[in-house]
């Protein structure tokens, strides 16, 4: 995100704090897709993810006056989304947060091995990215897709900066193992 957009997000939040509905529409238009995708990757259910974005932006509407601008608005939005997603997962008794459940959901469809049979390495990579644990998935998404810095990820996830770096390394290590199991050699490790 550019510095200009980050600054103008701050202006929108100031206007939202004063009850400006139009500013809310602009902010929503600007960020709702990324918020939705981040939420969807965590909760794995489109309906739940859609409910999630309504809740996230409603929180923004209510809390805009308390936003102090210490971080980017997009970082704040992702932190709220993560909190809401984890709360939602806790409420859903049929969904477990552990790796096994995540793998079971993926295994029901096209697994990495099948994807390789299609001779599509890119597809296998995406399948393996999906098969990562929620903890690893979110850190990979935040760094690669949402382009968040070490400091911003630390703020969103609520962990020390060094843990951000090591967690991402081990997420990549796990990804390499999954790909290897699917027969994909990439030259590293």
């Amino acid at each position, binding site marked *: 995100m550019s510095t200009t957009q980050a600054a103008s997000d701050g202006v929108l939040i100031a206007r939202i704090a004063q009850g400006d509905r139009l500013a809310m529409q602009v902010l929503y238009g600007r960020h709702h897709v990324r918020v*939705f995708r981040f939420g969807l990757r965590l909760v794995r259910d489109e309906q739940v993810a859609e*409910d999630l974005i*309504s809740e996230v932006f409603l929180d923004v509407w*209510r809390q805009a006056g308390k936003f102090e601008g210490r971080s980017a608005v997009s970082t704040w939005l992702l932190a709220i989304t993560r909190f809401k997603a984890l709360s939602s997962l806790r409420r859903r008794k049929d969904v477990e947060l552990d790796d096994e459940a995540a793998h079971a959901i993926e295994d029901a469809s096209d697994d990495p091995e099948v994807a390789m049979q299609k001779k599509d390495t890119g597809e296998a990579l995406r399948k393996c990215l999906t098969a990562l644990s929620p903890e690893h998935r979110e850190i990979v*998404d935040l*760094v690669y897709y949402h382009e968040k810095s070490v400091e911003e990820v630390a703020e969103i996830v609520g962990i020390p900066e060094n843990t951000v770096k090591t967690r991402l390394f081990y997420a990549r290590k796990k990804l390499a193992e999954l790909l290897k199991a699917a027969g994909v050699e990439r030259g*590293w*490790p």
Partner: protein
Amino acid sequence: MAMSKKMLDREPSEIEMLLPFHAAGTLNARESRRVDEALARDPELARQYAVIREEYAGTIHLNESLGAPSARAMHKLFAAIDAEPRRKSSALPNFSARVTAFFASLSPRTLAWSGSVGAVLLLLQAGVIGAVLVNNQPSTFQTASLSNNAPITRSLGAGAPPSALVRFAPDARAAEITALLDKYQASVVDGPKGGLFQIQFGNRAMTKDEVASVLTKLQSEKIVSLAVAAP
């Protein structure tokens, strides 16, 4: 392969852990330079970086394939907002937000005039303070000592530092531009005008050959589309 296995078994180095952030362009200029230097001298690290770029592209592809939410989410949100109690007009946002909103409400012309007026006022103030200080000096004042070995003023060299007009690639990131400026000890002194920035190298004059060499090197940078000597 044995080497690779070893790499996974040991603790990752600091530079290895920074590689994904470097690929995403989220490191500061100093860290970015460290990673660049390490990549240039370590082929194993460079191989790992190539893999990271694949992961990066794969993650973007995966997320982009997730689609977008339906209009239902927006309708639900604004229905909830409409149902919220109306805000009191006295409810003001925090101080920094108010300051941001105030400056955002000014037109660029107003901001430019305000800036100019502020600069003039600062100069006037400096002049007044200077005049007061000079007038208050006792007329019999003399320096206590004077070294004859060191010059009182530093030589500014034969001429001004050279400058160039540069156009950056459209996809160049701010962090990459900052790193580039650091690398050449350059600073932006003007622009953009017609997409061109005027940058100045260091703080000393250079020979014609030195300038030509710097410009050739600069032109070969991947985030630079054009680099020519400034007239």
